[in-house]
């Protein structure tokens, strides 16, 4: 069990090193002649106006809130899904009631108009 996660850890280390190798090769082989025009921001060839690091539209935020509820609660479904063969019918129905509550939440958000792109 520990060996499995040690293996994943080693995999992570090598998996990070492998993409770095071509970058180092590129650093050694590629020409480097920077100038201000080359290093300016590319936005269709027009000169850049204003900051890029700005606050962004809130629609994404509302979707993220709905997502958060679902994502946290679907994780609870995995243990239930594995054990379904061993559970009594009543426990399976309880899981289904849990999903129905989730769907009720989605319906609420839908009726409230949170899922509309405004």
């Amino acid at each position, binding site marked *: 069990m520990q*060996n*499995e*996660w*040690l*293996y*994943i850890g*080693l*995999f*992570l280390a*090598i*998996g*990070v090193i*492998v*993409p*770095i190798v*071509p*970058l180092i*090769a*590129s*650093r050694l082989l*590629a*020409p*480097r*002649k*920077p100038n201000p025009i*080359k*290093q*300016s*921001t*590319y*936005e*269709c060839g027009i000169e850049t106006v204003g900051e*890029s*690091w700005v606050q*962004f539209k809130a629609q*994404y935020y509302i*979707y993220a809130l709905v*997502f958060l509820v679902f*994502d946290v609660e*679907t*994780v609870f479904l*995995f243990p239930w*899904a*594995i054990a*379904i*063969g061993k*559970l009594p*019918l009543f426990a*399976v*129905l309880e*899981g*289904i009631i849990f*999903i*129905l509550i*989730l*769907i009720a939440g*989605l319906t609420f958000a*839908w009726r409230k108009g949170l*899922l509309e*792109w405004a």
Partner: protein
Amino acid sequence: MTFWNDPINFIANWLGGVFAGWGMASGLVYVITALIGIVVIILFAMAIAIFLVWVERKVVARFQDRLGPNRIGPFGLIQPFADIIKLIIKEDITPDGADKLIFNIAPVMSLASVILIWAIVPLASNIYGVDINVAVLYLVAVGSFGTLSVIMAGWASNNKYALIGAFRMVATMISYEIPMVVALLIPTILSGTMSVKGITEAQTNLWFVFLSPLGLLLFLISAIAELGRSPFDLNEAESEIVAGFHIEYTGMKFGLFYAGELLHAFTFGGFMAVLFFGGYGGFFGLEKMTAFGWLANPFVELVIFLLKALIGYWVIMWIKYSMPRIRIDFMLAFNWKFLTPLAFVLLMITALMDKLLAPTQFYASGMFLSNVLLAWIVIELLRSFSKRERLAKEKPAEPVIQAAQH
């Protein structure tokens, strides 16, 4: 145990014996043999990625009625190596306003997130990195690293188009991860385990695609969305935001994003095979007969797995080159108002049917029929809804025509 029956363990045991003979501690021997195995798996994955560059260019050419690369080597097979050399000797430009550290980490993380998935890919019954008991969750967790790299690239570029691309990717990811997780729950319910090897072995007699065709559809759609491929390629919509999140990347850093995307698509093709098409197995018990005993060989299984993954990859490519890009509000509405409710209804039906029908002989047919019935109900609902929408749009036009006649 010979090399042909169990190559990985054979080499690992042999190497372990050699290292132990040098007087190493057993923990160190494990780490070194594991490292050698990891390097082999990753190099294998990278070789596939190089091959995929050729496949992608050749197939898109055939879709567009062109020949594709055909000058360098037979059928242009050496072309990807020429591409790599070109990318390495290109000048690497970092824009002035960029956040240099994060800008440089993002492409590495993009490829590393895909390589990490290969730790659990079951290439054959005894050729795989590691068989963890939460493999399905691991797939979702590592997949979101890739999304994080897109966000990092978009934010650190200090470019408005890149930022828009990154935010679209966030919207896609947070939406389509829910049908994705539910689609992963369905093989988990059917097989009763989260280990990919267990899921593969549970399909020895019957592939899960016959038990849950709708689950496969959900997985395919949400995998394409998570890959950011057309029709969900809003994060790099080249006709409006140039190249999206990787607009400022040049040379090998762009190459890493590109290789990561291709390998990710192939890996999802492979997981489609593992979760719904029986993974490396696929003879339905034929290999148990003496005449076909040679089919139960890990190398045969490896070829079968790679073929299935290539077919899955081809389907993803086929969809990419046939579909137009959809608008972001349609994309989100499609997920939240169609895929997510469908996914949860399918999950409830699968759980209930699995519990009620598992001991009976109607298990497979009942599962399949319930899927077909659900699909039919959904199509009917969509049809009546679109009809209502159409009528609602046509109605206000009538009084205007009457007024004109008077």
